[in-house]
């Protein structure tokens, strides 16, 4: 356990240390952070090796008295996630070394280290309360990460948006945790898994609330709306770290935990999960297809791909779950890589608007090759890693018998490939604009993580056998899913034929769009963008009409208006009317005291008479 704890404690201590280091020192903060994260990664990798070797360690510390202990447990799934998180932290830390557009580097590395520490704690937690502690802690650093990534006012607004959406869903998750714990009588996940909860009565409410927390973290529809905003207003480093990697890993990890480990799901909940996954795929990819900004386009894909993972886990059969988890790690790899290429292009050219970019393949060959590999992976082109994980998800979906979800997933695949053809074509191919003639390749520290991730994409594709057999299979068998069927291997079956057909269709669609738009690659999506009905939908979506946060803000605005007028009304009753009456009476009384002797005398005499009548009447 000690070796796993290094990934939690060391970054935390180092983060506190970073605050003390002056802003003026050059490279000290960066190198210190990279060193610490490297140590964490090595420790986490060793921990994973121990766990895979069958050594399962755990730690129970006295905490909160009778309610819950501070329980950490390194089973294979947790160790696997811990290693993955540490790897992404390390890669992004190296990548950001020479990226300037990331805000103050002191606070950037502080946030990375804190996120690494808390995310590691969250995946290691065996108690729901301990996990909640780490999980909620990340919320703070999500806010600071976005808010400090740029000086602009928009960054603060987006940070607030992300904070409020995640804060609200975390709150719901907290209620879910309380319901779950009160149903099972303990916060300890291992103990709960021994007698799984069922979706009866309060169980449904508890699971639904936990589900909201998990998919919101993963960034699924309709909790995704802060991610495209963050793509515009924060840095590529942040995007390749949190929304692309850490959030997906944590959200899908927790989704798998609750859906398989803690609860015994019913078939109706299975449909809910799969529908949620399909809707996320379609809605987000539709939005992604028409984007004109490199990072924003990627951010919608980050949402869309979450849908595949939810769909995979939602099938509730071993193949789908394996596919979901495999897709989680694959997606983190290529999406992180893609955001890094975006950051690198932005760093070298100064823009991320694809209309202004073009023909960069010759200028930035390494970045371009990495992009092509990652884009092929995300589009599910064989034999890259994305192909295998999607294949598993498709198989799992078909096994459940709901063909419509399969069709939705394939449609998502088609649009994904189409949008990456458009993106790649307009950024790296075509004619180089004159102002980009002097563009140079990015520095090595920026390229290295990209190359590493592209290599993983290739390795997990050609050698998909290794991660599935050594990481995914033991992980899911540990949470109670036993796989009878074969998960790996290249099958030349009808699914492969369909994927080839989809690829050909997407290429055809791109060529059609390219031709219709007058040979402008960045406009290759216009024939769909401006199609009847769709153009209207796109318009209101661009105006953020469907944004859950904007809806909430509209509601808050109207209800605040109402509450204000109600408040004014009561204020009038309790304040204005009495004080007005008082003042009026007071002024009238003052007016009576006008110094007239005869008036004074008359009132006194009347008073005397009334008094005497009163005194006499009482006798």
């Amino acid at each position, binding site marked *: 356990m000690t070796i796993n704890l290094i990934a939690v404690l060391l970054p935390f201590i180092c983060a506190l240390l970073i605050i003390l280091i002056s802003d003026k020192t050059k490279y000290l903060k960066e190198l210190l952070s990279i060193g610490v994260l490297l140590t964490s990664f090595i420790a986490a990798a060793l921990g994973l090796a121990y766990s895979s070797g069958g050594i399962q360690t755990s730690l129970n510390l006295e905490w909160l008295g009778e309610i819950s202990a501070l329980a950490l447990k390194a089973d294979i799934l947790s160790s696997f996630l811990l290693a993955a998180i540490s790897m992404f932290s390390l890669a992004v830390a190296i990548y950001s070394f020479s990226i300037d557009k990331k805000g103050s580097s002191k606070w950037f590395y502080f946030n990375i280290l804190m996120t690494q520490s808390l995310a590691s704690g969250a995946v290691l937690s065996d108690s729901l309360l301990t996990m909640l502690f780490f999980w909620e802690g990340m919320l703070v650093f999500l806010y600071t990460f976005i808010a400090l990534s740029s000086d602009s006012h928009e960054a603060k607004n987006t940070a607030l948006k992300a904070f409020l959406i995640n804060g609200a869903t975390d709150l719901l998750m907290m209620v879910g945790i309380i319901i779950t714990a009160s149903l099972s009588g303990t916060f300890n996940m291992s103990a709960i898994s021994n007698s799984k909860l069922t979706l009866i009565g309060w169980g449904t409410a508890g699971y639904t609330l936990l589900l909201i927390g998990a998919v919101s973290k993963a960034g699924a529809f309709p909790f995704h709306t802060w991610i495209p905003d963050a793509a515009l207003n924060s840095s590529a480093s942040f995007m390749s770290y949190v929304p692309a990697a850490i959030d997906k890993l944590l959200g899908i990890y927790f989704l798998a935990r609750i859906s398989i480990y803690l609860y015994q799901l019913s078939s109706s909940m299975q449909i809910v999960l799969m529908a949620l996954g399909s809707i996320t795929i379609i809605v987000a990819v539709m939005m992604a297809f028409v984007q004109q900004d490199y990072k924003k386009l990627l951010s919608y894909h980050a949402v869309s791909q979450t849908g595949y993972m939810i769909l995979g886990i939602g099938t509730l059969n071993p193949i789908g779950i394996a596919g979901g988890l495999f897709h989680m790690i694959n997606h983190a790899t290529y999406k992180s890589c893609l955001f890094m290429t975006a950051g690198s292009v932005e760093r070298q050219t100064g823009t991320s608007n694809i209309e202004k970019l073009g023909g960069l393949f010759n200028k930035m060959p390494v970045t371009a090759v990495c992009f092509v590999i990652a884009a092929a992976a995300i589009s599910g082109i064989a034999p890259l890693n994305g192909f295998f994980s999607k294949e598993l998800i498709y198989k799992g979906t078909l096994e459940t018998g709901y063909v419509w979800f399969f069709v939705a997933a394939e449609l998502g695949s088609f649009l994904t490939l189409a949008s990456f053809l458009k993106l790649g074509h307009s950024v790296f191919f075509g004619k180089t604009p004159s102002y980009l003639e002097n563009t140079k390749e990015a520095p090595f520290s920026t390229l290295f993580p990209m190359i590493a991730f592209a290599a993983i994409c290739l390795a997990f594709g050609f050698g998909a056998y290794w991660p599935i057999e050594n990481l995914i299979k033991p992980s899911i068998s540990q949470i109670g899913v036993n796989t009878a069927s074969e998960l790996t291997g290249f099958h030349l079956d009808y699914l492969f034929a369909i994927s080839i057909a989809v690829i050909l269709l997407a290429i055809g669609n791109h060529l059609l769009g390219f031709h219709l738009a007058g040979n402008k690659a960045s406009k290759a999506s216009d024939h769909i963008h401006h199609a009847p009905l769709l153009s209207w939908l796109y318009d209101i979506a661009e105006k953020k009409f469907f944004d859950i946060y904007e809806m909430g803000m509209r509601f808050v605005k109207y209800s605040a208006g109402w509450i204000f007028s109600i408040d004014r009304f009561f204020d009038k009753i309790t304040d204005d009317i009495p004080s007005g009456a*008082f*003042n009026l*009476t*007071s*002024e009238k*009384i*003052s007016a009576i*005291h006008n*110094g007239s*002797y005869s*008036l*004074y*005398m008359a*009132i*006194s*005499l*009347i*008073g*005397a008479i009334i*008094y*005497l009548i*009163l*005194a*006499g009447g*009482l*006798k």
Partner: protein
Amino acid sequence: MTTELLSYSIIPLLAALAIPFFGRRSFKLTEILSNVTLLAGLGNLMFIIFNPSNKLHNYETFSFDGFTILMLFTIYLVALSIVFFSTFFKVGDFNKNAFYPLIMISVSAMSSMVLSVDFFSLYIFMEALAVTSFALIACEEKKSGIEAAIKYLLLTFPASALILIGLAIMLFANGSLYFDISMQNASPAVFSALAFIVLGFAIKAGLFPFHFWTPDAYQGAPATVSAYLAGIVTKVSGMYAIIKICTLLKVMGPASFKISSPLMLIGVATLIFGSIAALAQKDFKRMLAFSSISQMGYIVAGAATLNPIGILGAILHLFNHATFKTSLFLNSAAIEKSAGTTNMKKLSGLEKNMPVTSWTSVIAIFSTAGLPPLSGFWSKLLIILALWVAAPKPYAILALIFSIVTLAYFMLLQKNVFFGKPKEELKEVKEASVYMLIPVIVMCLIIVVSGIFFPFVFEFFEKTL
């Protein structure tokens, strides 16, 4: 009369006779003589009150009650404050040769009133006090002073007539005017006599609806005289007698409510009316006058419960009222001298130039409004408690609500006069001289100390009343 304490009424009288003769030779001597006389009296009283041996013997050696001694103490305290303040308060064509002897005579008259044991001497000394008051109001040779004096005279003379009628009826009914004998017989004649007497004193005390003379008289009189009138004179001439009658009423048993319930009604009406009227006042002194009326309402309401707690509350509030209202009136005098006006519309932001005046006002205001731990809180608390126990519940609630209104109008006053931005023409205003501040500071100290050490005060009255 209580012969034991008679010197407290005779010595000021002798001083009043002596002062004009000294005044011919040196005016300084006049001032010194009046200050010394009152200081000596106050010193003696303090010796009686704070003598440790009294406490040791559980106050069994006292042949007089705590009410009398407290009233004497209050009279001397306020009179000394006014005289000391006037010594350093030089303004206008104020006839000081008349002022000091008149003050001495009124001190003597008030002491005699307090020491009276029968209605007749009470009446005689009240008349003597009234005459000196007319003269005091008119002592500044201004038109407003004369007008105020005449108004005071004319509006309060029916009181004398009513009291005389009451005395006559009482004398016919049971042949004696001694407090203890005259009350024993609860015949209708005695009741009607008491009704007349109470009505007369109510006019003298300025209770609603007989209060009309008070704002005009306080505003028209010279600043120090209005402090003196509001602080002690009207309280003793009217309120003392009402409280005394309320303490005596208990010998009549249950029938006594026939006198007390109209009185309580008057008290509550007065406290409401005074507070509301004070809200709209634009003049510092006039607002104080209405506040004074409102506080009289509290005292009457407390006394008319006939409950020991209520009567104790009324007595203490009388004393507290003397302390805080004197400080406020003296502050208004200081402002009138420094800034040249008491119109609140023309004043603002004096806090910077007159910090001591401002903060002593705050203490006095908080005590008036009944904020703990100041002395005004305890007396108001006792009154409201007594009203809750021994009177219709709405009375207690109204008393509570209007104590908040008290705070409201005084906050208005404090805001308008002291806080806010100083006006251009008030930039040069100076703080009053140290000597003028001493009486106010002493009063504020008494407010704070008697509030904090209230348990001792309570114990004293528990033993002696």
